[in-house]
């Protein structure tokens, strides 16, 4: 079973410590990653997905170290991600955006030169993902013309197209209406039922509490609490971090 | 001692590099545009300087006029072209800048402007003394180049540290949106920045014209390519970096030519250095990631 282990990871940006000795283990669950702005959540995602090398520590996936793996190689291992600031391929249609993910196994081989990407087979695979993410209605419009909520969903669809076992979602519910957020939560649960492990960064406490089985709280680069939602809700340190800032 | 002589020659060369690259760095610092058309500003500066000098016969007046003309041209380029491209993909202003450069260089070569030939700019030294010691000597022309450069750098330093425009520039270089949000008048700052940077390029054009006693339409090409090398070496957008990198490049060029001779012309060597720099130290000699 897919298992991610983050071991004593630290990350420095110049003099700023973005992550401090972070360790966690996950697999087969929906894990929430919460914390105030600047807590290091996205940095942790960037470290796991290979966009940033950790200053210290290491990340292991299924027992293998991800040290020196480049982001595109990590995707091939089965870890896909979305971005907090959405990065759809604006000029491409929604379908083609999903197809970019479907090509993941082909890109490194010479077949990439000789195979077309629009074939009944590839389109069927992409259409299934569009169906799953409820994007079929926008199949042929350019991604840049979608409203932000749909762009976020498209990013998830594109990540799914790489057939990941572990999905890293960076604030998927940001900017969504409560109705859209509920639909998103259902999608995430469905993916989890299909056997995918999921890590969600979330700002919206209520959303995270309702969705995740276990929650990790980061503050100033450190993990200050881990546990099921009910426990986190009553954790004094967490309340301090959150309430101390917002009120 | 030839080393000291070489060093003083290199310093003169470096002065012109500094003036040229300063404007490029200032533009890159705020707008993140590779202002390739800067070369044309430099040449126009030299050309106006030449006209003014033959007309008025006074070097200092000619220098002033050239700087003003170059500065105005810089502001016009900004207001007329780049201004409309600030939110477009970065290739848009880049290609426009290439277009401006090609257009001006070609236009300047036409007979009604400079024509395709070199013209003399016979300024003797504008009253500068000759410095001669046991180890090296500096001609009045070289003195002139050094003196004007130092003077202009002091003025730039004062403007950047002592005026609101300078503060605004620094803020804008750090974060354009943020600076706008805290009340910096971005348009004014950027326009001033273009004026100042272009005026410096104009001065560089005049000085090089005087020093080599020649002004011609394509005189800006090589210095501007070198200016790019310099701003890369200096770490894009850093003003002290420009000074260090200019001196370094001039010294290396001078010593290579003086001691080794060369297989390739020294300009090609400079470009090889550029490519290697970009590959191995993309943030400049002094810069950090």
């Amino acid at each position, binding site marked *: 079973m897919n298992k991610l282990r983050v071991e004593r990871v630290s990350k420095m940006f110049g003099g700023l410590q973005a992550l401090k000795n972070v360790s966690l283990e996950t697999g087969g669950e929906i894990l929430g990653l919460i914390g105030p702005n600047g807590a290091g959540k996205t940095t942790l995602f960037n470290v796991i*997905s290979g*966009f940033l090398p950790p200053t210290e520590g290491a990340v292991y996936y299924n027992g293998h170290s991800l040290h020196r793996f*480049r982001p*595109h*190689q990590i*995707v091939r291992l089965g870890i*896909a991600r979305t*971005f907090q600031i959405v990065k759809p*391929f604006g*000029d*491409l249609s929604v379908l*083609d955006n999903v*197809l*970019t993910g479907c*090509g993941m*196994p*082909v*890109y*490194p081989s010479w077949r*990439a*030169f000789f*195979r*077309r*990407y629009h074939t009944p087979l590839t389109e069927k695979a992409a259409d299934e993902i569009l169906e799953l993410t409820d994007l079929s209605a926008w199949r042929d419009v350019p991604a840049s013309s979608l409203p932000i909520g749909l762009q976020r969903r498209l990013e998830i669809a*594109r*990540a799914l*197209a*790489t057939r990941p076992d572990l999905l890293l979602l960076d604030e998927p519910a940001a900017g969504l209406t409560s109705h859209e957020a509920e639909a998103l939560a259902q999608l995430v649960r469905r993916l989890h039922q299909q056997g995918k492990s999921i890590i969600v960064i979330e700002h919206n406490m209520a959303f995270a509490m309702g969705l995740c089985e276990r929650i990790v709280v980061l503050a100033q680069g450190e993990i200050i609490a881990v546990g099921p939602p009910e426990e986190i809700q009553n954790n004094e340190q967490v309340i301090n971090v959150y309430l101390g800032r917002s009120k | 001692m030839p080393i000291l002589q070489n060093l003083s020659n290199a310093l003169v060369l470096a002065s012109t590099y500094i003036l040229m690259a300063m404007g490029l760095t200032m533009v890159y610092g705020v707008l*993140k545009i590779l202002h390739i058309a800067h070369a044309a500003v430099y040449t126009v500066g030299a050309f106006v300087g030449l006209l003014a000098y033959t007309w008025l016969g006074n070097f200092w007046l000619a220098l002033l006029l050239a700087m003003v003309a170059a500065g105005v041209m810089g502001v016009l380029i900004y207001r007329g*072209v780049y201004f409309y491209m600030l939110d*477009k*993909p*970065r290739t*848009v*202003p*880049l*290609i*426009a800048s*290439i*277009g401006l450069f*090609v*257009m001006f*260089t*070609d*236009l300047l070569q*036409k007979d009604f402007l400079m024509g395709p030939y070199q013209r003399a700019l016979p300024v003797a030294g504008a009253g500068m003394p000759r410095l001669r010691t046991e180890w090296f000597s500096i001609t009045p022309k070289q003195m002139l180049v050094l003196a004007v450069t130092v003077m202009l750098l002091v003025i730039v330093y004062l403007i950047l540290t002592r005026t609101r425009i300078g503060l605004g520039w620094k803020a804008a270089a750090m974060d354009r949106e943020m600076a706008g949000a805290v009340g910096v008048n971005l348009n004014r700052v950027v326009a001033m920045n273009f004026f100042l940077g272009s005026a410096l390029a104009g001065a560089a054009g005049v000085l090089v014209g005087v020093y080599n006693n020649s002004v011609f339409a394509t005189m800006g090409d090589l210095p501007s*390519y070198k200016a*790019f090398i310099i701003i*890369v070496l200096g770490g894009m957008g850093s003003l002290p970096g420009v000074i260090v990198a200019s001196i370094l490049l001039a010294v290396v060029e001078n010593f290579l030519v003086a001691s080794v001779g060369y297989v*390739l*012309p020294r*300009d*090609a060597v400079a*470009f*090889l250095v*550029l*490519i290697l720099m*970009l*590959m191995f130290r*993309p943030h400049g000699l002094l810069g950090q990631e």
Partner: protein
Amino acid sequence: MSGYLMSVAVFVGIWVTLALSLNILTGYAGQVSLGHAAFFGIGAYTSAVLAVRYGQPFGVDFLAAILVTGLAGTVLGLPSLRVRHDFLVLATMGVNFVVVAVFKYVDFFGGAMGLVNIPAPEFFGTTFRGGVPYLLLVWGYVVVVWLVSWYISKTWVGLAFHTIRLDEDAAAAVGVSSARFKIYAFGISAALAGGAGSLYAHFIGSVFPDTFVFVESIAILSMIVFGGVGTLRGPIIGAIILKAAPELLRFVQDYRFTIYGALLVLMMLFQPMGLIGEGSWLWRNLTALFRRPAASQQPQQEVAQ
């Protein structure tokens, strides 16, 4: 067709292939290059050296030009792995200067005097200097280059090029190695330009370093930007107009680079997608003209959904 028009048509064909080949690098993969003339030159010199110094026939020269230039493109594309955007433009500019300097200062390549007396191609005992056969040869190559461009745009490689042009981070997130595909783009683009160089060398019969300088790179870039970057039609139209106009109109010849430059600026100000690029004014109207009946039905369907 007069001999003069014939040679204009040959030149236009050669520059169409140059524009199409740069389009793969700049239009598809998004890597702006100011050094394409260097690849054109490497192809021309490879052919010239093989023909003049080693007496090889055209077929060998041509294939070698494509191969050598493709390899050179792969190697000279290496800076693109470390360097992005503006910096890459500087690097490609530098590559152009260095390559021309090598042609100029290395005696093997004939120095500033270039290499002369390159024989015309010979097939089955007949030489092809100028005339209709050479024209067909060149435009045959245009068709080949167009087909390659078209085919790439349909394959996974083409899709991967799109992703690295649009966003390298997102490309990595779908498993595209931007390093690998940039090198592919440089290699393919250079190889195709190398073929153009070979055709040029054997047509003119001589090569000089000054043909392949930096401003020629700008001219080629102007062609694709003017026509419409990234499309299959834009570079062709751009190259035909910008290459033929100076040959046919005296005024344009005199002010060639003034016009190229002004065109680049004006296009960037008003039509950054090019004359007939996707979404440009002209192309919108042209397509509307031909698709009017279909277009009037479509909005209703969308409303119905």
